[in-house]
Structure formats: C-alpha cells, structure tokens
C-alpha cells in the first residue's frame, strides 16, 4: 500500500513539527493493524489569499494525494470558532463537489492556541532538547498538562525557557545556544502521543485522521 500525504500549513516551523508528528500517528495506526505501507509527503507552499481560497486551491492541487492536511493555529482557545471561521465553508464546498475536482480526504489541524502548545506537553522532552539541567520552575514551565490549551503564549513560553537557559550558559558555551527553530522536528519526533491526548485539539485531529485512515483500509 502506498500512502501519498500532502501538507499545507502556516509556516515552515509548523510544517516540520506537524509532518513528523502526523507520520508517527499514521505509522502507529498501520502497525497496530499489521498493514505494510510506504508513506511519501508532498509539502505544498502556502499561497497568498484567504484561508477559504487557499483550502480550495490546495485541495485541487492535491487531488491525486490520498490525504491533505491543512494546518492553521486557532490563535484563541476556541477550536470550534477557528474551524467555523477558516475551514467549514471551504470543506462543505469540497464535500458537495460532484465533479471530482478536489481531494475529499481533508484533515484540519487546528492546535489551540498554536503549534507550540503541543510542544509543551512533555516538559522533560522539551528540556532534553534544549539540553538544559535547569528545573521546570527555573525555566518558568509551571503549568498543568491538562491546562496547556489555556496557556496564553505557548511560543513565548518556549522562547522564555530557552532564554533562561541561554543566560545560564558560560560565555564559551553561548556559541552552542539553541533557537526555537531548532526544536520543531526534534520534539515532533519525540513527544509521546499519550501526553498529547490531554489536548482536546490534538484528540480532534487524531480522531479525524484515524477515521480517514479507517475508511481507506476498510473501504
């Protein structure tokens, strides 16, 4: 079985995190069902224009792919509102299309509030990748796993942790200091899926992905 996966997202950092993470979910799904397959990715550049027209364009271009993933941060803590504002109309238009112009296997990835919230869900893995020996409280990573989606500025939180770590480095060590951009695919590859299950936006994404995969393996 060959699975051709397409992705379009907001930025290159999000793309790195989400494609690596998504691939892990698909792999787990297939291995659990003892299915052998090859997975290839097509990354589609974001085009100028509204999210509605972007989704239509991407879905048309990805017509021959098996699944199209569309990522957009919720930006606030309301998944439904983000879905209604940015996805729903375009998805309906595509679902109603009877001419086969679009890829119908669309999956919205809408992290609340942003991709970086998903990166926060395992503090130890975040710290391992920053390569810091500082404690959670030193790094101001004082939030509960179940309340990550309420954290105000997840990206700022990671940046602050990195900043605190970098300040603790000696002058000589500073040349090895890390940037947030270095972390996306590393954490995407390591964050336990079981920890992500605490996040409602992740669960919605994973459930939809499994629904589409199920429909493909049990048509």
């Amino acid at each position, binding site marked *: 079985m060959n699975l051709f996966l397409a992705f379009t997202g907001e930025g290159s950092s999000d793309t790195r995190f989400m494609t690596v993470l998504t691939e892990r979910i698909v*792999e787990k799904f*297939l291995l659990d069902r003892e299915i052998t*397959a*090859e997975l*290839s990715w097509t*990354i589609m*550049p974001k085009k100028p224009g509204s999210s509605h027209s972007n989704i239509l364009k991407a879905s048309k271009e990805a017509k021959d792919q098996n699944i199209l993933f569309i990522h957009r941060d919720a930006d606030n803590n309301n998944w439904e509102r983000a879905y209604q504002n940015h996805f729903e109309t375009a998805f309906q238009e595509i679902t109603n299309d009877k001419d086969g112009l679009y890829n119908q296997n669309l999956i919205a990835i809408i992290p609340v509030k942003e991709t970086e919230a998903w990166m926060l869900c395992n503090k130890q893995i975040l710290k391992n990748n920053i390569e810091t020996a500082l404690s959670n409280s030193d790094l101001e990573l004082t939030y509960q796993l179940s309340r990550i989606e309420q954290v105000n500025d997840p990206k700022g939180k990671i940046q602050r942790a990195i900043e605190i770590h970098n300040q603790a480095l000696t002058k000589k060590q500073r040349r090895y200091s890390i940037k947030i951009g270095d972390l996306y695919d590393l954490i995407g590859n390591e964050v336990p899926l079981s920890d992500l299950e605490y996040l409602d936006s992740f669960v919605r994404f994973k459930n939809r992905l499994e629904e589409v995969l199920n429909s493909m393996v049990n048509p």
Partner: protein
Amino acid sequence: MITKIEINGFKTFENFSMAFSPFVIVAGTNASGKSNLFDTIRLLSGLAENDLKTAFSDQRGSFLELFTQYSSIQIAPSIHIAIELFLDQYVRDDFNKQEELSHRRLRYEIEISRKIDSKLKIERLVVNHESLRAIKRGGDKWFKEVVAGTKWESAKRSLNYKPYINTEVKNNVKVISLRQDGIRGGKPTPIKDLERTVLSGVNDASFPHAFAVRNEMLNWKIFQLNPIELSKPSPMLGDNILDIEGRNLAGLIKRIQTYEPMALRSMSRIVHRLLPEIKSISIDEDQVRQQYVLMAEGADGRKFSSNVLSEGTLRIIALIALNHDDRHKGLICFEEPENGIHPYRMKKILEVLRKLSTDFKNENEIDLPLRQVLINTHSPLLIKEIVQNENFDSSLIYFSRLVSKVDATKKISYKITRLSPVKKDNTKRLFLESIPAEDSVTHHELTEYLNVFDNVFAK
C-alpha cells in the same frame, strides 16, 4: 552501458529498480539517497576488481552499515544487486586478444551475505549467489526502444542462452560455474565461504562475455574533481589518464595532443566558447622538473599556469579533455556538477557533460566506445536547463526521496529511497515508455519540492 539496476538490502534500497539512459539525472534534496546510488556503482566496480572485504572497505561507512538497517538491531541479512548492460561489440584484453560478443545485452547478479566465522567469532562477507546471462531479445524492451533498427544492432548473434556464470546445487554442494562462451562448462567453484566474485577473476578475453562485463565495471568512475589536483602539473612519466580526483589533467591533454594534434585546437575552441576570457589552452614542458604544465592564454594575450585558474574553469577544461580522450569509455558519475559553476554557465557545462554520453540518434558515434553519464543534483536551475534543452530529450530525470516504509512483518518503520521518473512538461516522450505513468512526477512538481524542501527543512 548500464540499462537497469535492481538493489535490495544495500543502504536505503529495498526492492529498488531503476532504468538507465545514456545520460541520467537524479535530483533530490540532501540525504535523499542520491549518493547511495553512486555507492552501489562504486561497490559493483570494486567487486569486479577486488575481494569482498576490500570492495566493502572502499565504501562510505563500516561494512555492517552498508546492509539496510531497519532498526538498531534489525539489519538486512544480504545485499542483492542485479545490473543489466549493453556492451561494446568487441572486447580486447591486455594481451591484445580481441573477441566479438555474440550477446551485447547481459544481466549480472550478485548476492552477498554475512557469515559468522566460527573460529574467530567475527562476521565475514561471503558470496551467496552470482550469475551472468544474456538477455533474450523477445522481452527486451530497452533493446527494442533504443537499439533495434540502428547501427548499434550488431550482426553477430547467438541463440545460445546458457549462462556465462551460474550458481547451482551439484551433489548437495552449492557451486558457481564460469562457462567459456558456448564451448564447454568451466570448473565449478564451491561457493562455501567464497570471499570474492568469480567475475573478478576473469582476466582475459578467453571468457569474452564475462571479461567484457568485468571490463565495463572497471570503467565506471565516480568523479570528485578536486581543484588542487586539477591544477597540479603532471609528471612526464606518470599516468596520462584523468583519475577520479582530477590528477594528470596536463598529462592527459599532452597525450591527446600527441596522438591527434588537431584535438588541442578543438579543445581550445570549446574552452573559448564556454569561457570567452580564455583564448586557448596549451601544455608547457618543464624539462627541469620533468613535468607537464597546463597553460591558459587570456583574451589579452597573457599566459597563466593552471595554478591560478579557478575551480570552475579547471572543471570545464577537465570535462572537455575527457570528451576528446579516445580511451575514455564507460560510465562517469558526477555529484552536483553545478558546484563551483556560475549559474550563467550551467547550460554550457551541461552541453559538455551531454557529449560525454552516447547519442544513439547520431550514427557518427557508431565507432566510438559506449559512454554514459550519471549526475546527481539538488539544483532546480540545472533541472530546468535539462528539461528545456532538446538535446536532453532522450535523457532520464529521476526525483529521489526518502519515504517511510511501515513494515508490519518487522513491526517497525524505516526510511527507504524511492525514485520517480520526471515527466517533461512539454510531453516529449520518456526514453523508456515502460515506466508506469502513475509513478512519475512533473518537472514543476520536482522543482517545487526542491524549493519548498529547502525553505522548510534546510533550517
């Protein structure tokens, strides 16, 4: 000339198959498996010359790393490589014995596995299977599409398809037999613990087909032209063949000039056309140091030695010299030929590279030895030049990428290399129509992938 390669169990290759044309381009991002293809070619060439241990030790990585690693504890048990070839009509050995081949389409297969040495308790490499046989005309699509009806379709033809090298079980013992062409069976070699290929032991044209295949493999070169080596003078008594790092360039040009004085003027003309600031090239003889020095004369009449020529200039001169070398034959591989070349000159360097491969549409090339070029690149610009240039109509372009293989039997996932042929946007036909259309990508898709990948993943 390679026409097809199949690889299983080597590096990132699993059930991998790829058709070749005289000029082949493999495009992909870094770490997409492009160089592993070159490694396969280097390994095959090494296996035709040396024992397994030496051939494997010339590779990048330890010998265990050359077997496909599914996980840190699961490694492919064997490496299997099959190669299909189209060979020159005649083969000549070092003792000037020349033989005409009755089959020019041949398939060579080798399987190598690891075996524990019970006394030393270490793993050794052993030959598991080896065969060489003629490809029957009936199902040979490559022959039909490329050679049939051209002057390359030689008159001599045999209907004897007995394998030249064969692995079989005789009296419960696995043996490899080398057969002298159509005359009698050779002495079978017991395969137990065989640590070199039978092919590597064929040293003369008494076994014309096996010798021709070995000779072909020894003529595969993976160039990594080093500007320091290219610029060095060549010893007068040294080799006058360009080696893979670019040594002996001055000696090569001197030899070409000695045997064909017109060739130096031809080389100068081409150099001037590609590099207008250089009027001509010549070779100075430094009698004191007994060496040849490559000289270039500028448009203003000043002369410079190769020491002050740029990397790009030296590479272009080396390729032009190679093109004028009658002794040059077989396959040459180049990694990223765009490096060190100004984008403006990309088209010109491609033209030089193109002429280093046989053009089956040009009957004037019938007397030349078969030549082939394989390049890899991650440059969208180079791909664009090739797609738009009609001189590359019969070239194959491949898009290389690593895909995730989820293996339910092994209960793991790992990365493998997959190649997709690139359809040209102007719908000119592919060199081989046998490639399934659904496996191909368009030039636009390839270019977009290379650009997007750089933006997203090249942090």
